[in-house]
């Protein structure tokens, strides 16, 4: 909000420079974001918090400045201090049919007005704060709003049917063309200012075009009123129409400031537009009394919450300067029990803590001490944070960059990706709307986000990528009213070749086993060692290069090469490998404690053997079978190589493994190992129906 320095000085005698005013206001919570020169004036740009609508005017800002500088406000002499028209007579001009939505309504008829341009001083004032001059009467209502914080509306009296005002709920479907030349359809929940026949204004928001001030206007009806805040807010939302007036009404104006504001505007209209004012009509059906805030010991509460030592009399001085009156204990001056009544312009003082803030901000936050709370227990990370940290570190060390993608994704990914166990693929979480076209689905998988990152990087000619993301995926809760299911996932994507820092030439091209190795390395870093893969058909993966990731026999995710279909949609022309794991399923598992195994005393002897296997035979079956033969001198088995091609039948592969033999109490002889190895190869061959390659 813009505040003119010269205008402020009309309201309060301050000796402070514009910069000092800015500093002082910022200090008490009216954040001055900038000060700029405008002609011979300075304009302060104040960023007001939503609890301080009372400061949406020069009067409000001057009040705060008055408390800071302990200076009283200048009295603005009101020319018309007459007693309002008696209610019976007033009723002929104004009727309130919906008092629940209109706490108070004042009107005054000003006759023989000459509509014309505003004088230069008024134009300057408005332009200084960024407002545009229209004509004298419109400018005056705008001026008084910015001066006193009270929005008001001037009607052309002769265009009001019956020359009168009825404040009532609109009828459903009733229409009005507002000043912005838009026809608006009203409903019964909305308050309208009507003439004898039809709505003439949307109460507190915008006037109607038909009854607005024009160059031909002669007689003016000036409305200054107070409307129900919630109702103005609701109507403004429903009509999608927010104005300076609605902004103030919905936050709350000063119900006791109406007459003052009406008088000020009337005086200006008479002075600047030659009008002659009639009697003031004031209808005030429900007068609400402020609820007192009770404090047992305001000074003590200030100390308890802020650490500031402010004597009770100083507390009361600050509050009273802010218009917050306190009751004095008549019987016992030592009694700290007091009731505080906030002024009608403050809508944000309800409890003792609110008083504490008022005192503290004027006593100065800079005077509050700076100390650490007394020592307490030891700090602690999230239970899984250390495991996640090691997992992240391992991935980082092995060349993965960490990605973070939006949690909402496009609906076009629906059903295309198999979701990890724990997240439903079909019962998804949907947003009412989004700020990104189409992205209304709370992601059930992190992979679409990573694929978007791959596309982005391919477009930047970065074709060798390893990315991962750790974040939540979502699916619907058990019932409609249940909170959605949130699970922490790890997703990875690999494509292209191994790369080296500062070298243009790349290494080996990445394949399925790089992706698998990365999953194993990451999970191992998090303390999970028993990771196994088994072939499976996965929606988004290429048949033959796709696998379930299993931990302790339970499937926790999927791994493989992206399907040709999804690759084509993404215009990927190189293989892309993806993996996704539900971390919540595995991170709670106990970490195995390490038990030391004595180091071997005697050397081992290794023998390689190549088996000819069918293409659909798998390594894990061979290992499982070999495992059963372990014990004795046969100690270990390791993968060496898999070969297909020349010399091997079309439907077969040659699978080479290395077997290790060792004794704990002597060095084995070649002959012994030979015999044992032959025996093992023979046994396996018979069991699995495979033969060693000769």
């Amino acid at each position, binding site marked *: 909000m813009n505040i003119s320095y010269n205008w402020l000085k009309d309201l309060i005698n301050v000796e402070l420079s514009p910069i000092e005013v800015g500093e002082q206001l910022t200090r008490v919570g009216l954040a001055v974001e900038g000060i700029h020169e405008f002609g011979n004036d300075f304009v302060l740009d104040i960023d007001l918090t939503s609890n301080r609508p009372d400061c949406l005017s020069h009067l409000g800002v001057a009040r705060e400045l008055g408390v800071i500088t302990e200076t009283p406000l200048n009295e603005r002499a009101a020319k018309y201090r007459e007693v309002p028209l008696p209610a019976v007579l007033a009723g002929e001009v104004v009727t309130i049919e919906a008092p629940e939505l209109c706490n108070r309504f004042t009107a005054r008829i000003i006759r023989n007005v000459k509509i014309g341009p505003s004088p230069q001083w008024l134009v300057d004032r408005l332009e200084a704060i960024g407002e545009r001059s229209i004509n004298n009467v419109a400018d005056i209502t705008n001026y008084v709003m910015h001066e006193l914080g009270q929005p008001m509306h001037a009607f052309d009296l002769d265009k009001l049917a019956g020359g009168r005002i009825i404040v009532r709920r609109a009828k459903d479907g009733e229409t009005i063309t507002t000043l912005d030349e838009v026809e608006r359809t009203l409903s019964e929940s909305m308050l309208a200012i009507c003439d004898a026949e039809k709505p003439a204004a949307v109460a507190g928001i915008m006037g109607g075009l038909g009854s607005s001030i024009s160059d031909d206007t002669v007689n003016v009806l000036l409305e200054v009123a107070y409307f129900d805040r919630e109702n103005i807010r609701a109507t403004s939302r429903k009509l999608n129409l927010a104005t300076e007036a609605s902004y103030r009404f919905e936050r709350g104006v000063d119900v006791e400031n109406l007459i003052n504001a009406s008088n000020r505007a009337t005086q200006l209209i008479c002075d600047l537009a030659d009008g002659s004012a009639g009697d003031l009509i004031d209808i005030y059906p429900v007068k609400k009394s402020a609820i007192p805030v009770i404090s047992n010991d305001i000074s003590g509460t200030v100390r308890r919450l802020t650490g500031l030592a402010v004597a009770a009399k100083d507390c009361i001085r600050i509050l009273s300067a802010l218009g917050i009156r306190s009751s004095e204990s008549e019987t016992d001056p030592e009694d700290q029990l007091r009731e505080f009544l906030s002024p009608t312009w403050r809508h944000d003082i309800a409890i003792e803590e609110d008083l504490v803030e008022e005192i503290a901000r004027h006593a100065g936050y800079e005077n509050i001490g700076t100390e650490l709370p007394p020592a307490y227990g030891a700090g602690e990370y*999230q239970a899984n944070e250390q495991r996640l940290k090691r997992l992240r570190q391992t991935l*980082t*060390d092995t060349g993965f960059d960490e990605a973070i993608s939006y949690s909402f994704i496009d609906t076009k990914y629906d059903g295309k990706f198999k979701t990890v166990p724990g997240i439903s693929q079909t019962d998804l979480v949907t947003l009412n709307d989004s700020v990104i076209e189409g992205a209304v689905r709370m992601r059930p998988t992190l992979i679409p986000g990573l694929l*978007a*990152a791959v596309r*982005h990087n391919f477009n930047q000619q970065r074709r060798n990528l390893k990315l991962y993301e750790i974040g939540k995926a979502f699916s619907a809760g058990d019932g409609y009213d249940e*909170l959605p299911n949130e699970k922490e996932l790890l997703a990875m994507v690999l494509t292209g070749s191994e790369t080296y820092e500062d070298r243009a030439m790349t290494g080996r091209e990445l394949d399925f086993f790089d992706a698998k190795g990365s999953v194993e390395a990451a999970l191992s870093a998090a303390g999970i060692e028993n990771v196994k893969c088994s072939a499976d058909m996965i929606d988004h993966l290429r048949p033959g290069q796709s696998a379930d990731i299993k931990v302790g026999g339970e499937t926790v995710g999927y791994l493989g090469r992206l399907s040709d279909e999804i690759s084509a949609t993404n215009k990927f022309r190189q293989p892309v490998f993806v993996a996704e794991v539900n971390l919540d399923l595995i991170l709670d598992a106990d970490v195995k404690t390490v038990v030391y195994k004595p180091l071997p005393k005697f050397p081992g002897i290794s023998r390689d053997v190549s088996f000819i296997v069918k293409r659909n035979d798998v390594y894990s079956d061979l290992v499982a079978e070999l495992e059963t033969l372990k014990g004795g001198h046969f100690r270990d088995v390791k993968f060496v190589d898999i070969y297909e091609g020349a010399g091997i039948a079309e439907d077969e592969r040659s699978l080479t493994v290395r077997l290790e033999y060792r004794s704990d109490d002597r060095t084995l002889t070649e002959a012994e190992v030979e015999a044992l190895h032959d025996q093992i190869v023979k046994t396996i061959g018979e069991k699995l129906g495979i033969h060693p390659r000769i």
Partner: protein
Amino acid sequence: MSDERDKVEAVRTAFTEEFAPYADLRLDGMSLSDVESLLRGLGELKIKHSGKKSAIAATMKLIGGVAPEERGAFGQLVQSVEKEIANSIEAAEAGLNAFILNAKLERERIDVTLPGRRPRAGHLHLITILRQQIEDIFVSMGYAIENDREIETDYYNFDALNIPEGHPARESQDTFYTTNGFALRSQTSTVQIRAMERRGVPIRIIAPGKVFRRDTPDMTHVPMFHQIEGLCVDKGITMAHLKGTVTEWLQRLFGDDTITRFRPSYFPFTEPSAEFDFSCFKCHGTGRSDNDRCRPCKGSGWIELGGSGMVHPNVLRAVGVDPTEYSGFAFGFGLERMCAMMYALDDIRLMFDNDVRFLEQFR
């Protein structure tokens, strides 16, 4: 005995003639293969002119024809010629070998300034780096790290935080809703409630996490970002403890000379409320760096970081804590904003593009 002497001399002359190419070797500018062939030639020469079958060895047999009194002198002569030949060859050999060794070392000389064969390391996301730094600081100060739901009920996102229905913060069009009426949390303050329900009081926690606001992405807005929420509730906690705690962690992050500033503000879940700023880490509050207006603080010397205040009594009541017995402070700030200022990022959307050219600038 002059005949015999002459024969010895003839051998010497013959050697000297054959050795001539090696006698005064100038190897400069010769190729390795030329020198190697020279060495081979020298080898042949060596076989011919030294050893038992050489001409000089044969001259020893002549000693029988030498007068006995001259035999000693003759023997010496033969030996000296023999030695002379051996020495000459040895010297030439050494010279050639030295050249060859040098040439070979030279040939295998590498450019040690070429880049090492270093597998490309990956990079943590900027947000993770900063989050971990801040978590470490708070854990060392006795705080527990909390983590919680991202989709919440209105109760946790609003009601329990003293934002009743009809409150402007609630009606503002900022919050994403699911079709069945749950809110994507619009602030990590939700964790205040969840954590106090779980742990009770006294409590000291920070809660980092994602929050969501319905802002269309542009240079300075993103619809999803990260916040860290801090909460300390105990008997006797005051705003001085809030100021002390915020100042302490900012000093640990940005250096001991960092100073903080608290300005009155408004948040529904704190009373009194304050926004906090800290002196710019780049210009140390002067507003100028590199002879120009300082970029991170836009010349103000201050960086606005977050919101804070004393936990509102209604929030304490919502979790069954008596606000007359306990008091506490809470604070929150956005990590993207902080990163944007720390690294002078001009476009906050870079945080979620996952462009590796961006990611690899941070570690």
